[in-house]
């Protein structure tokens, strides 16, 4: 199946029009020395029927979450995805469109992005949001470099309670522009504000905090915020979980200058970690806006005064500014942003809050049950959102493997980080039966 529309007769007609004999003539400018020698060593194409069989065969070699109970989180969350999202984003005018360069034929995408920006502003409490970033990790990284550009400083305070994958991405990005990272060590999965007080100085571009942090705990946001604000020019970057923002205070309330995060939870599903959806927002400040990476949609009017939407402030972008651009980001995650927009519209303020509450209450139910088990202990009992650290006398890897035999993935093995324990995540999708099954299994292990 080749998806080539022209027939042999039509090709001949076209060759004639061009004035050549055969298609190969079109490639004569390619020097022989660099020409591909042979046919590509890729098997001949297969039909749709065979493709679907092949896809099913690959799926059969997986064990998906359809086949087991999962308490995995650690940055990728199994929240419910309402069916209308796929029904709507499957409309081909949305998903087969390019970036909306020609605004007049792209009002659908543009208006939806404007709505997305509005809802991100609402969630974060910030004044400006861009049209999306590649994922949570890269959004955090670009926010850090943005902070460095704004403050013209290079020092970054990076607690170890930030998602370790994000920390790695931040450092990778930082290596390009030679940033200087100060790692902070937590106690009991939380950062002592005194530590920040100690490390912050006049070279500090930005303090990064995660809300809730990687271990599910809520940091001492107020205290830390005060410390950062006292250190003039240093920016506060908060990496926020958007589901939590339905329930708990906006990052703006803690004085955040830039807010980023991963919005895969808002309707994108798991997909093995991608496409995810990075979001980014900042204070309504012209100087910050000029340094914001990514696309931005703005409302304007047409020649007849009718309102409409355009890509705006493109002078920050690479196709105009080239090496002076605020970022190289071009293709972003527009379709996932649309998913999030539909998700937030569908859930509404009550629904998003209820997702947060249910996740909270279920996680706390499970934590309490587990904590009562002999030999098990929940570290961060009170101030967690929907993830917590389970410690045991037993080896966490062995524990996880044992439970896997009962079709339960207990959580993320903190040994991967050289630490101990299991990071257990509960969303509104987990049922009481599923949680009780985990408790029961642990009881008899």
């Amino acid at each position: 199946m080749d998806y080539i529309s022209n027939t042999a007769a039509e090709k001949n007609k076209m060759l004639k029009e061009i004035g050549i004999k055969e298609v190969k003539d079109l490639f004569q400018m390619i020097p022989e020395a660099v020409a591909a020698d042979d046919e590509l060593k890729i098997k001949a194409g297969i039909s749709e029927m065979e493709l679907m069989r092949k896809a099913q065969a690959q799926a059969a070699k997986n064990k998906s979450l359809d086949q087991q109970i999962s308490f995995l989180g650690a940055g990728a969350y199994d929240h419910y995805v309402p069916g209308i999202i796929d029904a709507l984003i499957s409309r081909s005018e949305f998903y087969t469109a390019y970036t909306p360069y020609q605004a007049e034929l792209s009002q659908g995408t543009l208006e939806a992005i404007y709505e997305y920006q509005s809802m991100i502003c609402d969630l974060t409490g910030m004044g400006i949001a861009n049209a999306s970033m590649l994922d949570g990790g890269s959004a955090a990284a670009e926010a850090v470099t943005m902070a460095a550009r704004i403050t013209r400083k290079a020092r970054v305070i990076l607690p170890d309670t930030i998602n370790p994958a994000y920390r790695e991405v931040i450092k990778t990005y930082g290596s390009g522009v030679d940033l200087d990272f100060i790692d902070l060590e937590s106690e009991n999965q939380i950062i002592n504000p005194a530590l920040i007080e100690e490390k912050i100085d006049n070279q500090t571009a930005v303090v990064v905090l995660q809300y809730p942090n990687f271990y599910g705990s809520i940091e001492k946001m107020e205290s830390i915020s005060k410390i950062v604000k006292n250190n003039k020019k240093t920016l506060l970057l908060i990496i926020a979980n958007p589901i939590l923002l339905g329930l708990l205070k906006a990052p703006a309330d803690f004085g955040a200058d830039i807010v980023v995060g991963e919005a895969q939870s808002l309707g994108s599903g798991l997909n093995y970690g991608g496409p995810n959806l990075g979001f980014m927002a900042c204070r309504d400040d012209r100087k910050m806006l000029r340094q914001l990476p990514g696309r931005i949609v703005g409302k304007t009017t047409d020649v007849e005064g009718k309102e409409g939407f355009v890509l705006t402030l493109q002078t920050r972008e690479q196709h105009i500014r080239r090496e002076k651009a605020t970022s190289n980001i071009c293709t972003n995650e527009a379709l996932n942003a649309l998913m999030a927009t539909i998700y937030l519209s569908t859930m509404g303020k009550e629904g998003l809050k209820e997702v947060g509450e249910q996740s909270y209450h279920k996680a706390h139910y499970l934590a309490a049950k587990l904590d009562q088990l002999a030999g098990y202990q929940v570290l961060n009992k009170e101030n967690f959102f929907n993830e917590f650290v389970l410690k045991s006398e037993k080896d966490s890897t062995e524990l996880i493997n044992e439970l896997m035999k009962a079709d339960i993935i207990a959580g993320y093995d903190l040994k991967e980080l050289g630490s101990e324990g299991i990071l257990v995540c509960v969303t509104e999708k987990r049922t009481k039966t599923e949680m009780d099954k985990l408790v029961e299994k642990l009881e008899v292990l």
Partner: protein
Amino acid sequence: MEEKLIKDYSSPGRKGYSLPPLEVEKSNLAENLADYLREDLELPEVSEVDVVRHYTALSEMNYGVDSGIYPLGSCTMKYNPKRNERVARTSGLTNIHPYQPVEQLQGSLELLYQLKLDLAEISAMDEITLQPASGAHGEFTSLLIVKKYFADREEERTKVIVPDSAHGTNPASAAMAGFDVVEIASNERGMVDLDALAEALDEKTAALMLTNPNTLGIFEEDILKITEMVHEVGGLVYYDGANMNAIMGYAKPGLMDFDLMHFNLHKTFSTPHGGGGPGSGPVGVKDFLAPYLPKPLLKKDEEKYYWDYQRPKSIGKVHSFYGNYGVMLRAWSYIKTVGGSGLKETTENAVLNANYLKAKLKNDFELPYAEDSLHEFVLSGSRQKEEGASTLNIAKRLLDYDQYAPTIYFPLVVKEAMMIEPTETENIGTLDHFVETMLTISREIKENPEIVKNAPHSTIVRKLNETEAARNPDLHW
């Protein structure tokens, strides 16, 4: 506004969601997090039918490849087969968590491994990372590899050379990786000027970034000379894979002695662009650069496929997980159904279509470079500009005829540029229709330029005021 904002459908207390009842006892949220509870959220309160109608209405104000031709140069807007969407919605392949043990995911990892092998075969690169989530992300990743490579060798190389016809992401990515960008002019044939290159090259040169064919659709005939020149001063040569659709089965970046490159799965390998993403920008490198690839790297041993994190020289991670897996599923499906010989035919027909369009249009629009071109070509609207309508006007007028416009004012080396790339999935019927429309517009400019200058007329909104948008930003409701 043709369709009001979703918030304008909002009514206090209206609901569009459903959740199962909470089965467990509530814990003391109000007490535990008393200082944190939120009061000020203002999300819309709408019903399911409100949401469905609103976004259906918005979709009808949009234009996708399924609506018609999308001749955006360098964007490779080919038709995206529906079967790929079915694969990308196979629950056993998608409802998987990035931290499940690899033993549970051998089906998916095998599939990704096949994709890696196929990309390597197409490009003659030795090792591939699938992690970058877009083309620009792949560029940035590549330049960090370049940087790390030289850092390891303790060579201080600060300069990246970029032709003036390059995609804007090239210099931007180089800058993000901390390099100084040196732009070199093209020669009168639209190719790299070897003298300018020689002049720019020195022991500070880290890399030359090049796309081939370049953004004029012209294949750099001296490519081996170019790569040799860069290698001679100890620099690396990077291939911008945005134009891969022009050469599959005919040439390979690896054989042109490029050292590293990125792919755009959402261009060459037919994954839909989603109105601006998601894309996927894998990076391929020659063996000597493989140690620098982001971690983890997908590997295979005798027992299984696995993610290799033990990569001391790696630049680190550029994505939270493994990149845009959902996009990879579609690209995998595409390559499987098209096959090796099909990829070559794809290229042949993309080039045939572009050359056919060029032959039909070159008399009525100025062709700034006479050189043979491949999958895309650039016209100039300067003749029409003199007659009273700019390239922007022509682009807007195309919209009146229900067709999308070419990429305009790019590459920067051509005045009033229109960069046209039809791709292989258009047929002679849609091409002829596009030509006819372009000739009509050209005639209109001669006879009644006002109608073109004031275009578009029949779109949902008419020409939008971009200056005002930038001057007084209205960025949210």
